[in-house]
């Protein structure tokens, strides 16, 4: 009696199997339809994205790019102790200034206290975490007091920002001081 019922009713199984096949096929086509074309080309990701990533615009160029036009600064900057300092960190990104070889905008000019602020990003003595030996450190009011200049003076009044020791050395040469800074 038990075995009879088993053989009699199997249509539910057939229905289930048909439903699974239909769903599987539909799923397969849906996947084809909704996945991007290059999905899985190199792995489980959109292969075409590599090309997209390569085409992200470059906004920062090198100092050499700036020097292609800014020749007078090139001579000073490349000879001085600031030769490793990037133009674009202080002045702004190349892409905001030049596009396809044409000037498209002016970069903001830094003045007064802004310049002092930029200098102190690297040269502030009170920030102790800096390696002591790598660059020259100055404590801000003390340096001005020591050099006997006004306390409200900004760095660029004594130091040529592109080569900070240029004027200092020239002045020393003029008045014949030989000692090191």
């Amino acid at each position, binding site marked *: 009696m038990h075995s009879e019922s088993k053989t009699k009713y199997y249509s539910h199984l057939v229905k289930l199997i048909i439903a699974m096949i239909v769903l599987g096929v539909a799923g397969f086509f849906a996947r084809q339809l909704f996945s991007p074309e290059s999905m899985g080309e190199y792995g489980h990701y959109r292969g075409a994205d590599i090309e997209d990533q390569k085409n992200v615009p470059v906004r920062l160029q090198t100092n050499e790019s700036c020097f292609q036009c800014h020749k007078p600064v090139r001579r000073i900057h490349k000879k001085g102790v600031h030769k490793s300092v990037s133009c674009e960190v202080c002045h702004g*990104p190349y892409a905001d200034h030049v596009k396809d*070889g044409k000037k498209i905008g002016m970069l903001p000019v830094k003045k007064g206290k802004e310049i002092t602020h930029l200098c*102190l*990003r*690297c040269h502030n003595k009170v920030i102790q975490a*800096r390696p002591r030996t790598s*660059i020259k450190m100055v404590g801000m009011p003390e340096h001005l007091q020591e050099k006997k200049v006004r306390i409200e003076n900004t760095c660029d009044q004594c130091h040529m920002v592109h080569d900070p020791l240029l004027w200092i050395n020239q002045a020393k040469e003029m008045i014949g001081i030989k000692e090191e800074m």
Partner: protein
Amino acid sequence: MIDIKKEIQQDRRAFIKKVLGGTIAGSLLLVIPATAQEVAEEIPGMRAEDSVFTKKKFVFIVDITACIGCGSCCVADKAEYNVPDHNYRTWVERYIIDDHDGVYVDSPNGGLDGYTKPREGLPYPTRDTFFVPKLCNMCEDPSCVQVCPVGATYKTNDGFVLVDKTRCVGCSYCIQACPYSVRFINPVTRTAEKCTWCYHRVRKGLLPACVSVCPVHARKFGDLSDKTSEVWKILHEPHVISVLKPDMGNKPALHYLGLRREVV
């Protein structure tokens, strides 16, 4: 006589022609700017690579003993990608370790404005203090790739872990999975974003933006398959080298020179 006059006349004409020609050509040169010459290749042999993946193995080395914490890298990074405020693809942390082994870390605005003030109010004298720049570790076994449900984050064959903006659904699983917290959801695009080691620059033969602006050369980037490169020499010679959280098993390609054990 007439012949000579004629010749002068002709000469004059030729002279005027030449002067006029020269003037026009000269002024044209001023009007049409000289096409910008391409900057020299900063990564040797990069522009010759034309296949989908390069055959190079890139590593990034940060020299803790050189970093002065100026934040130039952060400025460059923000400018290169127009990163929205208060999100950081790279940032610089200041570590202070006191003589009771207490560790204090701060990073005001990710180091973007530089460090302007010394840290005050610490109970004990400082024993050691240094800056630690942070960026994507480009893991060999990246957790973020493993958890991404839509295949938006992936690792290229040459080791870059990238995010496909068009695939990302902004579910933030990768942000939880990353042991180094380098990922964030961009509030503008609403997709996950992180440092890419400037993949687009590297493929064009340029160094990553942060590397090229670092004034003290604390950030180094190069090809490990090139035995003449600086990075190869650093990783194959005796140095204090470590990676962050080695126990996580992610095998980062970002190495630190002079890393202290307190850094996480």
